């Protein structure tokens, strides 16, 4: 009997002296897979122009209809996107989105991709409707918060800078003001 009891005690003692395996989540984060489908990112070209041309193909491809796009004509003097039109409003209902990535596949200009960000919680439903401000890759001098992406194959050529747009905010909570009036064109993304 004593041998078994001591064996049990030895096992627990061995576990006690070995380091914990817990990942201290908000401080420490696991790298997400390179093709992780998290919160969407609206990309820009290197010159700062938005890739989105407001064609609404993403909204059409979306199986749950969580994307709302309102297009507007570009001002030739101050174009927002290289095409004729751009998205004056671009909203995604993150509560309804199933993160299938069809929007990214449908996009002719690779303007929208799904990013690595997965901390999609908030206290208010309104905050979970991501607006263009939240989704757009910031520009210029954009410093993304470090989210490690695990090295691996299959990284799309247009894979964004890791954390994506809106990350100049402290976090999703309180940063996304929800449904906003239409944003005037030509606005630099970084706040």
């Amino acid at each position: 009997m004593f041998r078994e009891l001591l064996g049990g005690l030895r096992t627990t003692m061995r576990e006690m002296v070995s380091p914990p395996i817990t990942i201290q989540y908000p401080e420490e984060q696991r790298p997400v897979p390179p093709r992780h489908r998290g919160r969407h990112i609206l990309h820009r070209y290197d010159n700062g122009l938005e890739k989105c041309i407001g064609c609404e193909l993403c909204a059409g491809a979306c199986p749950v209809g969580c994307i709302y796009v309102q297009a507007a004509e570009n001002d030739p003097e101050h174009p927002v996107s290289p095409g004729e039109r751009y998205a004056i409003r671009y909203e995604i209902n993150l509560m309804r989105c199933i993160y299938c990535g069809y929007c990214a596949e449908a996009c002719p200009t690779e303007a929208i991709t799904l990013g690595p960000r997965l901390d999609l919680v908030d206290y208010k439903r309104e905050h979970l409707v991501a607006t263009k401000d939240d989704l757009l890759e910031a520009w210029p001098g954009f410093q993304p918060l470090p989210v490690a992406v695990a090295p691996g194959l299959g990284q799309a050529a247009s894979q964004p800078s890791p954390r994506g747009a809106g990350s100049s905010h402290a976090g999703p909570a309180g940063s996304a003001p929800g449904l906003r009036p239409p944003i005037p064109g030509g606005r630099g993304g970084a706040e």
Partner: protein
Amino acid sequence: MSPAATSVLLAVVVAVVKGVLIIIVLMTAFAYLTLAERKVSARIQLRYGPNRVGPFGFLQPAADGVKLFTKEKVAPEGRDNFLYLLAPALAACAALFAFSVIPINQTICIGGTHGAGPLSASCPGGYPLHWDLAHLNIGLLFILAITSLGVYSIFLGGWASNSKYPLLGALRSSAQLISYEMAVSFALIGPVLLAGSLNLETIVTQQHSLWFVFLQPMGFLLYFTGALAETNRLPFDLPEAEAELVAGYHTEYSGMRFGLFFMAEYINMVTVCSIATVVFLGGWMAPFFFLPNWLGPIWFVGKVVLLLFVMMWVRWTFPRLRYDRLMQFGWKVLLPLGLANLMLTSVFVALR
């Protein structure tokens, strides 16, 4: 003021100071034992444990206290209100009382000449400062009596709640405590025979050459096993058995009323570990002869902490015993072993 009145006043002041000190120390010990327990369990399960409140979670007990005090006190209908409120208070009081006779250090003689020999507790002409609240000649008997009082709190709590799980937990608990108390008492009689006294300080001083744990290894094991049962710790935590009885006798208690039961359990842990230290592990004696003996309280606390750690370690290692096996183990293993140990010790003492 007459000399008699002065000495009475002095005794009262000293007793009050000691009592307050004991309560403060035990409460703090309780608070940090809960943290230690959670930390130990976490490390055994490869977790970190509480580390959000203060550095390394050091303020967690305070947060827990605030939570307990501000929680709604839900009480069942049809309860016996007086007993319902009495039970947790009794539990906490019994736990605190038992500590009052435990000597933490050797009696220090202030003023007069120390009695003959370094081990003497007598102090003619001076003021003997005892390191326990009540310097009783029957200290061990007092402890056994007071710890049995804890059964009442558990049973009253279970009965007064007017609910089935507490009642079942209380029934189990009283049966368990009564049967394991026998074994514990027999285990403690061995050292008493060897020391020839029930006074805890004498028991410690009798261990100056060899701790009783080496003369009474069986007694120590029996006592420790029984102590686990007495404090309702795993693997003998049948009274509270979360999985079967929800929480046993304190199911219907919430807020600080539950907190008092919880406190009683942890202070009881401290008490039984202190008794084990005093009776078997040489109390305040230095663990090795080359270490200074004047660090008495440090050695004492160190030994108690070690035993407490073992209790936690055991708790997070072994599963709960089935109830019939628990009773079988108590009556058919521990008690006969205790009796055999007692007889052997008696023979040894008689032939010495």
